[in-house]
């Protein structure tokens, strides 16, 4: 079952073609990694799929539904969450509040209910807090709950962002370089979390440079260069691939 299908995705910035006719499919429950040298177009592809950047051409289907060109909020509502390369953390909120914000769409409190103190609304808010706390415990960052997110280390912020992306039960999680800034221990932990997620049927699409993580965790690896797909294969085969080596060591 293909949860995500990308066909002929092309993104242009002025004269520069950042993503060039990219096509790939991701199966449900897979951990799918996108690799490539800097500037290869990985984050841009992410942005296009997520609705943050306009695509010049192509089609993207999530669970069979076309999503290319939809606003990011709508795409989130369909069951996709993502993290950002350069900090998507909400600095001024606490860790708990960050994760609570992840439950925005799952908290059935109406405006009127909230401002009149309607019990149902209050209950909805409270159960959101419970869910958020559980997620923090799962990610083993429960003790950070009351800390301001902007005060945390980079690695901790990453964890918070991932917790926030996971808390609402999204079916496709897109992680943009989650391992950057993480200590080896944290990377190990992250890898475990990702594999566990995949085990529960959640699909993970990630952009990553850190090869160890990618190799240990992914089912499929797609290598990009200059916005084009070079290869797509299981991690073990990537190492042997001539083109990939050249991309990284040669012109990349």
């Amino acid at each position: 079952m293909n949860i995500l299908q990308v066909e002929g995705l092309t993104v242009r910035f002025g004269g520069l073609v950042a993503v060039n006719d990219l096509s790939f499919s991701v199966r449900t429950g897979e951990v799918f990694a996108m690799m490539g040298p800097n500037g290869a177009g990985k984050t841009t592809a992410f942005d296009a799929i997520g609705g943050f950047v306009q695509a010049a051409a192509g089609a993207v289907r999530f669970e069979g539904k076309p999503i290319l060109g939809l606003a990011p909020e709508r795409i989130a509502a369909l069951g996709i969450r993502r993290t950002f390369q350069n900090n998507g953390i909400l600095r001024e909120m606490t860790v708990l509040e960050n994760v609570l914000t992840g439950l925005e769409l799952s908290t059935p409190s109406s405006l009127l209910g909230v401002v009149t103190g309607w019990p149902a609304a209050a209950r909805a808010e409270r159960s959101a807090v419970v869910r958020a706390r559980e997620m923090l415990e799962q990610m083993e960052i429960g003790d950070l709950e009351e800390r301001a997110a902007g005060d945390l280390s980079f690695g901790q912020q990453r964890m918070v962002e991932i917790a926030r992306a996971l808390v609402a039960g999204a079916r496709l999680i897109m992680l943009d370089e989650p391992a950057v800034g993480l200590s080896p221990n944290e990377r190990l932990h992250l890898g475990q979390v990702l594999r566990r997620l995949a085990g529960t049927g959640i699909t993970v699409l990630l952009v990553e440079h850190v090869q160890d993580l990618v190799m240990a965790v992914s089912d499929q690896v797609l290598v990009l260069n200059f916005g084009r797909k070079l290869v797509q294969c299981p991690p073990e085969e990537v190492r042997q691939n001539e083109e990939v080596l050249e991309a990284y060591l040669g012109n990349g």
Partner: protein
Amino acid sequence: MTLSTTRPGARERDPAAAARRRALIVLLALLCLLPLAVNNYVQFVVNTMLVYCLVAVGFNVVLGYLGQLAFANAAFFGIGAYAAGLSMVHWGVSGPVGIALGGAAGAVLGFVVGLPALRVKGYYLAIATLAVGELMRWVYVHNDAITFGPGGFSLPELRLLGMTLDETLKYYVFLFVVTLAIAATSLLLRSRFGRAFVAIRNNERAAASLGIDGRRMKILAFVWSGMIVGLGGALFALLNGRVSPDTFGLSQLLMHFAIVMVGGLGSLAGSVIGAVLLTAAPEVFRNLPGLEEIVFSLMLILVIFFMPKGVGGLLSDAFPLLRERLYRRP
């Protein structure tokens, strides 16, 4: 995987929140007894404080929480006053209805101001909202038939349930309105809506990736802010018994700025404190021309330099118990 301290359906009891709630109830009880202790003049000043509490709280929603440079507060204040006053003069509605209309008018203007806020930000928005404020004043001045022009107008005698509203009765009406408004705003800001505002302020892209509809939330913030400040404007009209256009210009806006900054952006308690502190002041300065402006602007400058978090921020730092969930860090 569940935590041992949370059973499904268990109510989260936060001891700090319970203590806060009790303190507020005591405070409210004391406030109800206030008129017994003060004379008419002091009562008038207290009533003015209540009005500016609403002004500050409303301003804070857009300036402090949403973080937008929207300088339309004086416009919201003005339209609330005019809506309340004019409805009472032209249609003969009672005070409470006038107040409600003031809030509604503020909400509508909030919506109107919110729309350009979706397109422009920062200084552009500041300028545009200033323009809206001045435009409104021009409308008040140039529509004599309806708005009684530059001289303004007086409100008819205020009556409630057969009684003429004196300062004390006004106090109870104001206290009622202000308590409800601040309570509702507090609930709003502690909920997912308040979080959405701050999320948009911190990182709009991240907020969108979580499903937060930036456009809707911004409009909501503006409409809410307009409504609260509009209510304040209505109360202001009732307080003074008069409404005139020159009250709602830039000097008024300066006072709003000063109150919100002294109190602390993003702090509701701070807004109340700021309102109380700064409304007591002007009486002294009314007599000498320009003195009021000088004092307020100096205060604002000093606060910006030395106390950017305002009184509310200072208190939050000193007393964790008082810490509000989301305060702005400058």
